[in-house]
């Protein structure tokens, strides 16, 4: 491999690893919060209502993540000036 190819490959692997870590963290938090909220009394199977709640909770959590991200980043930018 040439230097250029090695560099490109390192960049690709690092980016993939960071993306995986990010998704893992997000999934962990979603499972924590939404299981707590949507499955208060676990039964012998996941009910339709619980599944619907979980999906909506997950969507809400991701929107919340985006909202925090936007707020935090715009603050960082403001304070850097």
């Amino acid at each position, binding site marked *: 491999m040439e230097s250029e190819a*090695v*560099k490109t*490959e390192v960049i690709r692997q690092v980016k993939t690893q960071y993306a995986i870590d990010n998704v893992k963290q997000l999934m962990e*938090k979603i499972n924590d919060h939404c299981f707590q909220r949507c499955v208060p009394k676990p039964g012998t199977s996941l009910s339709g209502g619980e599944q619907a709640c979980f999906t909506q909770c*997950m969507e*809400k*959590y991701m929107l919340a*993540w985006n909202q925090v991200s936007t*707020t935090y980043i715009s603050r960082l930018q403001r304070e850097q000036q």
Partner: protein
Amino acid sequence: MDSSLADHDLEKLNEKDKLELRSFLANENQKARVQATVHSLTDMCFKKCVTGTIRGGKLDGSEEGCIANCTDRFLDVSRLTVNHLQNMRQG
């Protein structure tokens, strides 16, 4: 292209590419730190702001506002802590 990197492949990096990689890594590291903060803030603010029964996958207006305020106020507080500790050190 073979996607696996062997240790000795890294020795093939020339100085220019090494430099470029260093700044790429510093940049990615910083992004990861920002993301870690976003994860922990979301964790905290979701708990505080999304308290009602979950009906629908959107955030309602008050939840959205609450999350933005929660983020901003937490950052205010963490700055207060830094300032206070600095004052204690000087005092």
